[in-house]
């Protein structure tokens, strides 16, 4: 009996060390001793990831700048986490679901959602600027880990409908302490719900370091207790993120249930622009992580193979700059907000009480207009 339990556990275990296919210099790392076989993604895929990371980083820097201009109420940067956000996003299909948190703006842009719609929540004109059903992308979630249970339910719904769509749900390291993380993994496992739980372990939950968040040797080990296979991956290695996502997706799509990924990465900026990261971490630590830049890493690999040259890099940088410029222009236009919409979507049909409140606000606005 004991051996059976141990054997079952073996198949769930993550690799002893984070899976890495490219080292920080862009050199290929020989695959030995990983829990599963991970294949090097094609050059074409890595070029697509590199391209989206360049665009994504420039978007992120622009969004941070927009907070300084007062155009965004707040912005949680994901600069440095490009390999996670872009890699995981490009690994899934348009028909797959995504369940993002407030930090996944770059992932949403990579998904093809209009960046102005992505920033709606943070600008403050709407809680969600895009259509979750049309984009298969849930509203960015502010409470921690609550959307993981939704992801498990949506993935189960897809399975019940006879489709092979999966749900990809993002969280950070701190969110693994929340009760809903536990309930989501447990539900997904019991219902064999094709859900990929993608933890971006960026080392801090606002100011609280991982060491004060958990005693687990790796957040990926949390899968074992639920019967969910898991892997830990170098979250700054785009090739490894793609490879691990491929395995997780194959697992989920083939009816074997959920998969947990812990991506080791680092949040180069503060939690949000409202946070002062110098209070809780050293500049040496940040500098060390700058040397693990996911864009430089895959760029070096692509260049060494002749898949990329300086002209393409320059053209891509120009494209990123143009997109940022367009975003800046569009964000500088005042958003239109319709006051009467306040009452439109509390219920499908407003109650008598909402109609009364609507009439009051309407009268107030009319009085204001004629004053």
């Amino acid at each position, binding site marked *: 009996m004991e051996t059976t339990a141990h054997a079952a556990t073996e198949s769930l275990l993550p690799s002893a060390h984070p899976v890495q296919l490219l080292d920080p210099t862009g050199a290929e790392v020989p695959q030995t001793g990983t829990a599963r076989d991970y294949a090097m993604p094609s050059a074409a895929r890595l070029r697509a990831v590199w391209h989206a990371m360049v665009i994504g980083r420039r978007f992120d820097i622009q969004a941070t700048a927009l907070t300084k201009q007062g155009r965004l109420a707040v912005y949680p940067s994901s600069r440095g986490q490009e390999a996670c956000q872009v890699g995981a996003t490009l690994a899934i299909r348009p028909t797959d679901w995504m369940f993002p948190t407030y930090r996944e703006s770059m992932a949403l842009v990579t998904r093809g959602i209009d960046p102005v719609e992505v920033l709606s929540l943070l600008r403050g004109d709407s809680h969600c600027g895009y259509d979750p059903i049309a984009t298969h992308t849930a509203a960015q979630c502010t409470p921690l880990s609550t959307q993981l249970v939704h992801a498990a339910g949506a993935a189960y719904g897809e399975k019940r409908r006879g489709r092979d769509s999966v749900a990809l749900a993002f969280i950070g390291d701190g969110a693994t302490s929340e009760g809903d993380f536990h309930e989501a993994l*447990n539900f997904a496992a019991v219902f064999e719900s094709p859900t990929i739980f993608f933890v971006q372990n960026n080392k801090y939950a606002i100011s609280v370091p991982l060491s004060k968040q958990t005693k687990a040797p790796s957040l990926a080990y949390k899968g074992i207790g639920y019967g969910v296979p898991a892997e830990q991956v170098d979250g700054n290695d785009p090739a490894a993120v793609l490879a691990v996502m491929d395995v997780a997706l194959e697992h989920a799509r083939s009816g074997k249930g959920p998969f947990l990924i812990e991506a080791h990465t680092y949040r180069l900026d503060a939690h949000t622009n409202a946070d002062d990261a110098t209070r809780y971490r050293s500049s040496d630590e940040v500098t060390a992580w700058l040397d693990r830049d996911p864009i430089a890493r895959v760029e070096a690999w692509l260049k060494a193979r002749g898949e990329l040259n300086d002209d393409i890099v320059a053209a891509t940088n120009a494209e990123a700059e143009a997109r940022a410029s367009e975003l800046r222009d569009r964000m500088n236009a005042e958003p239109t907000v319709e006051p009467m919409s306040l009452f439109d979507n509390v219920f499908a049909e407003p109650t008598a009480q909402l109609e009364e409140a609507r009439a009051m606000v309407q009268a107030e606005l009319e009085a204001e207009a004629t004053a």
Partner: protein
Amino acid sequence: MSSARPVTMGSALNTALRDSLRDDDDVLVFGEDVGTLGGVFRITDGLAANFGEDRCFDTPLAEAGIVGFAIGMCLTGFRPVVEMQFDAFAYPAFEQITSHVAKMRNRTSGRVGLPMVIRVPYAGGIGGVEHHCDSSEGYYAHTPGLKVVTPSDAADAYSLLREAIDDPDPVIFMEPKALYWSKQEIELPSRQPAFGKAVVRRKGTDVTLVTYGPSVPMALKAAEAAADEGWSVEVVDLRTIVPFDDETVVESVRRTGRCIVVSEAQGFAGVSGEVAARVSERCFHSLQAPVLRVSGLEIPYPAPMLEKIHLPGVERVLDAISRLQWDDQPDLTFAGGAV
């Protein structure tokens, strides 16, 4: 010809679930113990056997998980009806209910509606131990985006649950568990007035008792007893707390000139206070006396052997009626805990 027969509220709810499962393949019933066992109150009795475990199934014991999972299933077009087993057991799901269930339509500018029903057996009177008897309707009613429904008889239980399942918005369906075994001569299926429509359960001319759910039968008994003392008492059953039927309540109180709000829930900052405030605002010139509340005490729900003292009963309603004459300085000592 009438084939009306005695139907309990519990079996009316079971029939409503059956009919909904039969009529709409997207309706699913799930929660802790709802499958093989048929629910601890047997409200889901036989559903798994009759409709298959795809349509009615047991989940892990995790209320946030049950509600959150239902949210996700709504995204793929299902209409989940989930059970919380007991009132206070729903509190772990409170974040999912208030932060997500209530807000999803609004957050997504109307693009994502959540046609789900959360069934919550609630309130006391059954000798339940701690955490099994809370009146939690106030929490839900205070949260914009949730419809809050509570039947008081079998006919309404059937009709309101069918409507809740058909509704495009999330409905917190509060089931007064002390009334599960109450019987009514009815023929199912039947439809009663729609959400947002209160019903006058007894006509009267001197005072209006506004009440709902578990307190309705008690209020009717009190009205009967008050008749012996010469009071003609009207009883209004709200049926749905959200949406709220100002019209029926106001029409009644303007006619009778007196109002007592009767609820099992504690009075302070609750639904009964809201009703009292609405009546005061709208009926001030018709009122012969202040609006009184007869409610549960301002205490954590007591141990079963003491619940009779906590629960509002006929005597307290009669006492409140007697204090409505207002010839003297009002004594508000026990009016909904106000002093």
